């Protein structure tokens, strides 16, 4: 009893602001202790289990010879390279898919979104059907389907489709002519660079002139024409700066040229069309969030439709579109891991093979997490910067 009384006296003596902080401190200490206990238990279990199963730990395996073949790689790779390098090839493949996936999905998504709000009934219904179908089936199913199309629907190499001379479509891949750069190519590259700088400068000048005097120079057209004309002229003047290495049928398969494997085609098609449906919805809700009054007002001021879209609707729609689209970009990157299901060697697929060979799952999964989080962090940073630029600046 005296102990209880002592406690109650102490409780009365403690000032109220301290009372809550004492309990919360105690609670937190308990939580920390529990976590440490659990972590300790897990660690000791893990160690025992790893020893019992004869699994090594640590990242030493990364420098060992991998011995696994990789079908699609951007960089030169052979099975005698190390596990670390193989994993790196996986990272480059993931980044490759992610980058082109994001660019293409954005383009198609914008088209879908605009088609969805079109005042053409047929077009908007078609876009709606597209969105509702693609958003309500699993991506993996779509990938299986595109992969079976790329393998089954396309003919064997001997009966390749040739939509353009030098281009071949068959079930081993899509073959392009490969450009071989001659020394003269650098002049063309220089011409491209110069024309880009010129277009940039003239656009700046036109903007300033417009702000100062109201005169309008068709700067976009001027820039565009320069960017086409200058490199074309250089190309014409210099002896062929690029020779094309065509793919030719030798035996059962094509040799030479550039090839895109069916795994990549299938993964890309599936990812892009799936994500484009989501981005299309974002674009639609963004455009519809701009009130009609804004458009009417800008029409009343006599702005042409294009300018209304560019200067009035788009800046306001982007504020709604960007945050949602950031999420879709990160899910596209994460979804690219489904490559493992159709045999495209991305990071997860190569990591999975490594786990199969040496059982070092913990290390590989840690590496996966680190890479995905870094990519997603970079996407978020870039998109947040972009978002900050289009936000309304409050007074």
């Amino acid at each position: 009893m005296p102990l209880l009384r002592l406690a109650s006296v102490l409780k009365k003596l403690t000032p109220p602001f301290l009372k809550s902080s004492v309990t919360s401190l105690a609670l937190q200490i308990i939580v920390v202790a529990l976590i440490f206990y659990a972590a300790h238990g897990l660690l000791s279990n893990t160690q025992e289990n790893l020893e019992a199963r004869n699994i090594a730990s640590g990242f030493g395996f990364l420098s060992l010879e991998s011995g696994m073949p990789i079908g699609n790689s951007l960089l030169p790779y052979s099975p005698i390279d190390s596990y670390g390098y193989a994993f790196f090839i996986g990272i480059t493949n993931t980044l490759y898919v992610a980058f082109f996936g994001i660019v293409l999905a954005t383009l198609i998504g914008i088209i879908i979104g605009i088609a969805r709000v079109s005042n053409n009934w047929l077009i908007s219904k078609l876009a709606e059907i597209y969105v509702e179908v693609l958003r309500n089936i699993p991506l993996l199913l779509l990938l299986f389907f595109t992969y079976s199309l790329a393998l089954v629907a396309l003919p064997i190499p001997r009966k390749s489709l040739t939509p353009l001379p030098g281009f071949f479509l068959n079930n081993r891949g899509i073959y392009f002519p490969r450009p071989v750069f001659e020394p003269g190519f650098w002049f063309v590259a220089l011409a491209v660079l110069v024309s880009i700088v010129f277009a940039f400068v003239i656009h700046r000048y036109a903007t300033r002139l417009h702000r100062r005097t109201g005169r309008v120079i068709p700067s976009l057209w001027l820039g565009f024409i320069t960017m086409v004309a200058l490199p074309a002229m250089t190309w014409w003047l210099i002896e062929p700066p690029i020779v094309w290495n065509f793919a030719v049928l030798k035996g059962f398969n094509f040799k030479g040229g550039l090839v895109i494997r069916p795994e990549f085609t299938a993964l890309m098609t599936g990812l892009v069309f799936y994500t484009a449906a989501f981005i299309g919805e974002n674009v639609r809700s963004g455009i519809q969030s701009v009130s009609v009054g804004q458009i009417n007002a800008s029409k009343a001021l006599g702005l042409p439709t294009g300018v209304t879209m560019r200067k009035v609707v788009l800046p306001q729609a982007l504020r709604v579109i960007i945050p949602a689209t950031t999420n879709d970009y990160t899910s596209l990157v994460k979804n690219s891991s489904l490559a493992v299901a159709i045999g495209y060697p991305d990071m997860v697929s190569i990591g999975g093979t490594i786990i199969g060979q040496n059982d070092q799952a913990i290390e590989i999964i840690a590496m996966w997490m680190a890479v995905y989080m870094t990519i997603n962090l970079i996407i978020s940073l870039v998109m947040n910067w972009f978002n900050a630029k289009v936000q309304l600046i409050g007074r």
Partner: protein
Amino acid sequence: MIYKPLPDLPPPLESVGLIGWIKENLFSSKLNSLLTIIATVFLWKAVPPLLSWAIFDASWALSSTENACSPEKHGACWTFIFEKFRVLMFGLYPEQYLWRPILTFVIFLTVCSLTIFRILRTKLLITLWFILPLPLFLLINGGMGLDIVEQSLWGGLMLSIELAAIGILMSIPLGIVLALGRRSDLIVVKTLCISAIESIRGVPLITILFMASVMLPIFLPEGMNFNNLLRVQIGIILFSSAYIAEVVRGGLQAIPPGQIEAASSLGLKRWKVTYLVVLPQALHHVIPSLIGRCVALFKDTSLVIIVGLLDFLGMIKASAQDPEWLGNDTEAYVFCALIYWIICFSMSQYGKSIERRNQW
């Protein structure tokens, strides 16, 4: 003479009725006319062959006969789907016990419709949803007098629905705890919850499934052994709870602070403020987003094929590779897409209708 207005002239013929509608919606400008023509040509070229493939030229024979699906036929071979129907729905579940998953499904549908049509009181419904999984599990798995059915025999659509339903049900409480923890004043709890949520949301579901099926056995003490299905289910619950936590957080943020202040000034303890005032309102706000998560999770359960479970998509793929029925990939995938689409689309329409009515 009194001025008497003449009756109004009827509107010009080309601005009313069908012609008016067509002019307004299909040919309002040059660009629109061009687009309409292109779309019509596209539909003209695409729809008739598609219909004749899927319906008119297709083989609808219920059971396999000699010339049901001969290679000369150009239509779809739905006989293949009818033949494989049991496997697609229930996996390798033994035929003599099929009444058990069917009964389970009927009960599940009943509870779903009770929820949709709001026949029971909310509290009763919630209790029902959280109690029901246990008897239903016993019904499918066996035990208590029923013969045990190995979990490796479960599969098909039954498994997909099971994984998604249990995943959502279990992850809602976990997600609420994580969301409350994220808003806690206790710095340790807050950091813990944030890092859990963000690290799960930062990685693809596949890595989490790999983790659950490969790493979980390494973490657990000797002798404590889950089967693959349970491990994958745990992975799905963890994955889903991080996303649900973010959804719930959105609802919590929408509660004006005045509500909490008013409740505290009435003398309610803190957990009572949360339990009686904040949470009911927050959850009510986020029901449409929760249904969105259900759709997403149901689609995501198809990934379990990668860690070796044969769910609906897995069974579709396995059936398409059956040597007796080669060349029916397209039929299999189309059927699979149709079923997923019907389920997901009706769920998202339900979510939208709740959002429109702004009440559950």
